[in-house]
């Protein structure tokens, strides 16, 4: 374009000069000579213009500092016969652009979910069917028939049904010290009622204290609100990552310690000394830790006393590069300590009877080396329980072991492999076979307080967020003196 301007300017200058000359008081011969020169110049310009048009020569403006080095690129452009567009093509492009803008605006107005801040909506649904070879029977209590179950062997149920909202409240572009939120609701079948309430599960705010942009540095974040406890492995695993349909006994309320229930509090999480293997896009911190204070009273409740419970976890991962047999081998220690209210129950009335100690100690091993992995968790519990005004508080001591061995067939468990460019909605079909041994002794000082579950299962992953699970559980319950087998099939999808 610059050359066009130069040529135009030259022509105009020459024309101006010629106009001036007509008014000049010069002799005719001189004028004729000048006109002849002008004609010659015009002819040259026309020739150049024709050459330019014939060759479709593109002209670029060298905008770089190192013009000599980059001039080759500009010259190449001049060889390209696709540098110009016609007016019709340009109008077509403008029209497409306007139509696109209109469509985007209209869809935004009428068909788009909006939020004030960045938001990702996600969820999990589990639909399952089960068969138990031991009839389940719960007789009515008084006139209350809601809890009654009459000789049931089979059932259809919904497992976890959850919907979550995660997003960002403040994004730090400089260092990645972001402020994030997580809101999650979930429901599960309520025994003896047809109400299935949507309960608040997670409601938390997380601030990343240390920069998160570089993989080479440690992380540190503070989370305030209702959240999962950083205790062991299974408690922190989300539904989509758990191999088994039923959760480990120790994590559940009732027989276990209820550690999988959320609590409200403030927890600091972080890691240090990461091994970063950029050749594999792999990051593994040698030390990861979490500690904090929580109510100790479960989810969706205010604290029931002034004592706050302490939660702490320290995990050591062997500093191994990706292509090492020692990759993903870690050892963890978890600690949960606090106090709970004790009550003296007399008939239909209850009174405060002081506070009792609650202690959970955990040790876990994790080794995940595709195609197989092994996990083991040991949890020891101590709970003070009230007996009577005269007797001492009884310390109930319990313990649990949970071991899982799994073997993967397929590629979906390799992060880099499943992230591919494909034309269709491709996903590597994968299968995971596992065996789990889960046991808990509710009171080590008493006999027949043990429940064992052996589970053999297969998970089939046939789409990005969808899996089919089948588990065969053998339950040996010394507390009820019953042994039975249970077959559970579950279809889980996420979005």
């Amino acid at each position, binding site marked *: 374009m610059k050359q066009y301007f130069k040529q135009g300017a030259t022509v105009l200058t020459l024309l101006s000069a010629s106009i001036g000359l007509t008014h000049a008081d010069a002799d005719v011969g001189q004028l004729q000579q000048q006109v002849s020169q002008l004609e010659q110049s015009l002819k040259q310009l026309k020739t150049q213009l024709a050459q330019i048009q014939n060759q479709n020569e593109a002209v670029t403006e060298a*905008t*770089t*500092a*190192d013009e000599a*080095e*980059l001039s*080759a*690129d500009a*010259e*190449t*452009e001049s*060889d*390209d016969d*696709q*540098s110009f567009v016609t007016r019709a093509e340009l109008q077509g492009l403008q029209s497409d652009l306007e139509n696109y803008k209109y469509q985007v605006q209209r869809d935004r107005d009428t068909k788009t979910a909006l939020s004030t801040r960045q938001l990702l909506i996600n969820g999990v649904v589990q639909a399952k069917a089960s068969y138990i070879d031991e009839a389940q029977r719960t007789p009515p209590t008084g006139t209350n028939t809601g809890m009654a179950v009459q000789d049931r062997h089979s059932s259809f149920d919904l497992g976890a049904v959850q919907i979550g909202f995660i997003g960002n409240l403040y994004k730090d*572009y400089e260092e990645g010290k972001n402020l994030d939120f997580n809101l999650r609701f979930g429901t599960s079948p309520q025994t003896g009622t047809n109400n299935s309430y949507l309960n608040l599960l997670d409601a938390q705010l997380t601030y990343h204290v240390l920069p998160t*942009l*570089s*993989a080479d540095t440690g992380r540190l974040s503070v989370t305030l609100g209702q959240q999962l406890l950083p205790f062991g492995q299974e408690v922190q695993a989300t539904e989509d990552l758990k191999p088994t349909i039923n959760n480990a006994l120790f994590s559940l309320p009732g027989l276990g310690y209820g550690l999988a229930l959320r609590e409200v509090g403030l927890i600091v999480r972080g890691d240090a000394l990461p091994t970063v*293997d*950029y*050749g*594999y*896009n*792999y990051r593994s911190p040698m030390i990861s830790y979490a500690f904090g204070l929580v109510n100790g009273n479960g989810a969706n409740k205010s604290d029931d006393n002034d004592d706050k419970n302490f939660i702490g976890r320290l995990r050591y991962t062997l500093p191994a*590069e*990706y*292509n*090492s047999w020692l990759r993903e081998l870690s050892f963890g220690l978890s600690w949960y300590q606090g106090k709970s209210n004790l009550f003296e129950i007399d008939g239909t009335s209850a009174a405060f009877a002081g506070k009792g100690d609650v202690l959970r100690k955990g040790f876990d091993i994790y080794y995940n080396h*595709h*195609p*197989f992995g092994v996990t083991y968790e040991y949890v020891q519990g101590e709970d003070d329980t009230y007996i009577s005004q005269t007797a001492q508080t009884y310390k109930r001591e319990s313990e649990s072991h949970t071991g899982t*061995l799994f*073997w993967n*067939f397929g*590629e979906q468990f*390799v*992060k*880099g*492999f499943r*992230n*591919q*460019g*494909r*034309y269709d909605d491709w996903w590597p079909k994968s299968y995971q*076979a*596992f*065996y789990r*041994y889960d046991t808990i002794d509710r009171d080590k000082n008493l006999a027949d307080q043990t429940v064992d579950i*052996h589970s*053999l299962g297969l998970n089939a992953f046939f789409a990005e967020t969808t899996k089919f699970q089948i588990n*065969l559980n*053998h339950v*040996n319950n010394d507390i009820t003196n019953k*042994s039975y087998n249970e077959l559970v099939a579950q279809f889980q999808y996420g979005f």
Partner: protein
Amino acid sequence: MFKWSKVLFAGLLSTATLVPAVQSFAAEAKPTVIRLASPLVGSGSRPVGYGNFYSTTQTLGLLEKEFQKDGIKVQWNNFKGAGPAINESYANGLVDITWLGDLPALIGKASRLDTKLILAGGTHDNTYLVVAPGSSAKSWADLKGKRIGFFRGTSVHLALNQIIKKHGLTEKDFRFVNVDGPVGYSALASGDLDALFTNQSIFPVTDRGVAKLIYSSKKEPAQYQSSGYILVNSKFEQKYPEVVQRVVNVLVKQAAWDSNPANKTELFKIWSKSGLSYNTFVRANDGVDLKRHSAPILDAFNVAVIKKKLKAGQDLKLIRGNIDVDSWIEPKYVNNALKTLNLQNYWKPLNANGQ
């Protein structure tokens, strides 16, 4: 009942152990599938690479044609995670033959990935430094203390560290941010990055006026430029040498076609099926000797470049460990292919100095 559980447990263990054992002892003459991988992905996640004869072969479906009569399936995997994702897949035994950029190939081998280097897959590829159109930066020095994006672990990483070293600078002089291509373009456009160091895929972005080119590696020595190699899983190579030879034959034949200047227009059109414009390849290959670029031979020059890159990567602490380059390279397949295709004199072997 506990016995019942033991039986179950033993059954699972036996199954888990036997399945891979049966697989490994099945000495078949031909594989059922050849798993190929490329770190190149086209626009819109389309599985179409560009810029080398390996990608041309994929786009033209030549290996599928070669093995169709044998009933051997050819599976292409184009990884968005680029070279690191291929290394990850090698480590887990999920790929057989791949194209891999210089740095990830060297890192993988140095960390004991059991691979053989059987072909040069394209040399003299260039890297580019771009800034936002309104930036006043005109050189590396002008960007001191600024945020520069690039994709760590890829061949661009090694080129970057060598080039800044040549300019008397180190990583500490900049604030490097790990980004892949599309993220880098948008970050540059939004001002979250001051500059971006990347490969030829930047040209459509400069054409849109989102970025301004201030540096190209075209005038740099070969070791500062990027190169790629064809690797094969050693177990696959030992088990199916004939299949590997046939794959190499197809690739070398295509390399010869890519090398022919008469095919340049057609070649760039094939590469532009990736979604990058035709003009991208015109500009990226201007001043580049396509015949030398596509030469698959493992001559003294190409071997010397690999060794120089290894040394540079080790000096810059990007590569841990060492590699016996001479034993890593297995030239017999390319040499056989040259004889079979009567191409012994097509590419002139160069000495270590490039003469």
